[in-house]
């Protein structure tokens, strides 16, 4: 199938600013501010400073310069034809956020928030991190701009993502392992908020996703929307038309909001968020907040979350530390309720199959978070058929996940023996499939989708 590139119209090139949130940070009934009064003044300060910064041409010039010269934007689009053979013949385009400096989309947001921190005159930043990508990005921006940096990370995650802990420390950040609660991202956020409420006069909280109290969901979206703004123009210039569907993984949801935002007004483009289905939503061991949760309040915002009958947050489960979060950004909750975006779960097994497939067919090792979106593309491609054009946000690279993948696929001995033939399929406790050749990498029906 060939398409003649056509120059898109000016109107198509200028996507509109979303009509939400309102002045109080509400996306429909979601969002808002559910925080101690002590933090309201700091959130007001951030809201006002951000509004002023957004109107300041000097800020935009500096932000654009950093994105080009430091991050390496614009990130390219890569068409993956061999991978797409497993997606019902649909064409699959990847937006390569994995090629950004620091290896994921997280840098887009932290550069904006670090500039904002300097603007309000604070010298210390704190951040939460799950997979470590946001922590690394924050530590990077802090090093670049001369800010003190403290990163809170669940103790469990510091073990799962030891490489990123080392990177943060090399960059001069202090990593604080959090030992309360489930010792994962949710508890790291609690601890970061406790630090902030205590040290708010000197400290800015660089929040990593489109969740939390206003203005974080709006501000992080605005810093991340460059992904979709670029991709929409790149696809139009390359294909002369818009994609049929845009797919992204959703934990808190910043890479998904980043690529969705430009396409929200394009009614013909389906927006599909892939949540972490863990062992399967039916098992209760998952992190699919929209698919398997209910509206409530968590970490400062009303949104979908995993909770029990008493309103206690339920521990989430996912092979991917970056998606292992029991809540989701409030804008996603709104997009779900109004039917503009759809959210589907992808199990650990489905994600790891897609992970292996992209490695073997295209020579790209994706982050395990991102592999959830790739698994979704395999299913959606088969649903939409050979004429379909899919755009997938390749939100991060998988270097940090090499240990997890090695354990999953039972490749442990290969690294010591140097004999791949000796590798046993499904070695270890994980129910992982053998990492075979591309030809025998089978993909299941994806009935969980």
């Amino acid at each position, binding site marked *: 199938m060939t398409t003649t590139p056509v120059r898109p119209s000016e109107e198509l090139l200028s996507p509109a600013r979303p009509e939400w949130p309102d002045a*109080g940070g509400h996306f429909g009934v979601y969002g*808002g*501010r*559910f*925080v*101690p*009064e*002590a*933090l*309201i*003044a*700091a959130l007001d300060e951030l809201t006002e400073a951000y509004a002023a910064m957004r109107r300041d041409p000097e800020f935009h010039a500096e932000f654009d310069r950093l994105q080009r010269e430091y991050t390496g934007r614009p990130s390219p689009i890569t068409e993956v034809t061999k991978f797409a053979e497993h997606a019902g013949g649909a064409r699959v385009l990847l937006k390569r956020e994995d090629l950004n400096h620091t290896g994921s989309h997280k840098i887009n947001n932290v550069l904006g928030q670090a500039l904002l921190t300097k603007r309000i005159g604070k010298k210390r930043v704190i951040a939460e991190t799950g997979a470590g990508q946001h922590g690394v990005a924050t530590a990077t921006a802090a090093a670049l701009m001369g800010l003190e940096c403290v990163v809170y990370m669940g103790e469990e995650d510091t073990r799962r993502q030891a490489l990123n802990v080392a990177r943060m420390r090399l960059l001069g950040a202090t990593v604080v392992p959090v030992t*309360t*609660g489930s010792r994962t991202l*949710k508890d790291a956020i*609690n601890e970061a*908020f*406790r630090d902030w*409420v*205590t040290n*708010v*006069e000197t400290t800015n909280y660089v929040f990593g996703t489109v969740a939390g109290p206003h203005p974080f969901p709006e501000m992080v979206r605005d810093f991340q929307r460059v992904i979709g703004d670029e991709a929409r123009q790149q696809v139009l210039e390359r294909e002369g038309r818009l994609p049929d569907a845009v797919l992204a993984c959703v934990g808190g949801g910043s890479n998904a909001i980043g690529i969705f935002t430009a396409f929200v007004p394009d009614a013909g483009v389906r927006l599909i968020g892939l949540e972490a289905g863990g062992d399967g939503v039916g098992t209760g061991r998952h992190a699919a907040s929209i698919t398997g949760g209910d509206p*409530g*309040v*968590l*970490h*400062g915002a009303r949104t979908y979350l995993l*909770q029990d*009958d*008493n*309103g*206690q*947050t339920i521990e989430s489960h996912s092979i991917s530390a970056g998606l292992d979060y029991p809540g989701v950004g409030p804008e996603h909750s709104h997009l779900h309720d109004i039917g503009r975006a759809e959210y589907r779960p992808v199990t650990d097994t489905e994600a790891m199959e897609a992970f292996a497939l992209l490695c073997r067919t295209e020579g790209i090792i994706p982050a395990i978070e991102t592999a959830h979106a790739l698994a979704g593309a395999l299913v959606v491609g088969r649903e939409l058929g050979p004429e379909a054009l899919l755009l997938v946000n390749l939100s991060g690279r998988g270097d940090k996940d090499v240990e997890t993948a090695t354990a999953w696929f039972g490749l442990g001995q290969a690294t010591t023996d140097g004999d791949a033939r000796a590798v046993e399929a499904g070695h270890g406790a994980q129910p992982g499939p053998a990492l075979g050749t591309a030809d025998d990498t089978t993909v299941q029906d994806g009935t969980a989708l």
Partner: protein
Amino acid sequence: MSALAERIAGARAEGRAALIAYLPVGYPDVPGSIEAMTAAVEGGADIVEIGVPYSDPGMDGPTIQEVVEVAVRAGVGMRDVLAAVSAVAAAGAVPVVMSYWNPIERYGVDRFATDLAAAGGAGAITPDLVPDEAAAWLDASDRVGLDRVFLVAPSSTEARLLSTTAACRGFVYAASTMGVTGTRSTVSGTAEQLVTRTRAAAADLAVCVGLGVSDGDQAAEVAAFADGVIVGSAYVRALVDGGPEAVRALSVDLAAGVRRGQRVPA
């Protein structure tokens, strides 16, 4: 008149501040926590803040986090909280529920208000609900005549002191320091200043001070300028270390403290 305001006015008539004790439901277990609350009342607490266990207590320091985690894991819920409310009322103190917002929203705001009033509760303190987001709670608490206590902090602007105190009924909770709950060796100097600013915003509303008070001497210090002294982590520490007897002894010490404070009668 609101039950909380009435009790605080009664203390003021005696020339002293009210003593407000916080204890969470469900530690060491539900009956044990009710026993501890009763001991706090017998030792001299006027008001008991009955804590609803919550999995993500963002305003609490390690002392309270640790015991609340026990209650959360045991599945303690609103029915247990309502039982504690009735027990505290029967013991002779005024019960007020202290809850992060999600457990109330999950239970149902209207249902919570109705059931709390029926159990003899005076109202609720909501540490992560600001009046800006509280429309449903304002309606429900008006409907059944419950008190509602919001927080003010040293960082609150004059405009927010006005709007927050206007939404309060019973008293306003002045969070004396910027930070989480926990005992501190000294009471922050910002506390008195915050009370003065809050009084300027709402002359008729009682101002009670929390965060950091741990013994009778600190209680006396705060009682000199506040209408009520709120003690949380120190009660929890006493319960963990010495059981209900230690809780009773702490109440006796604190109750003497609020009577030593040189409060000028209003």
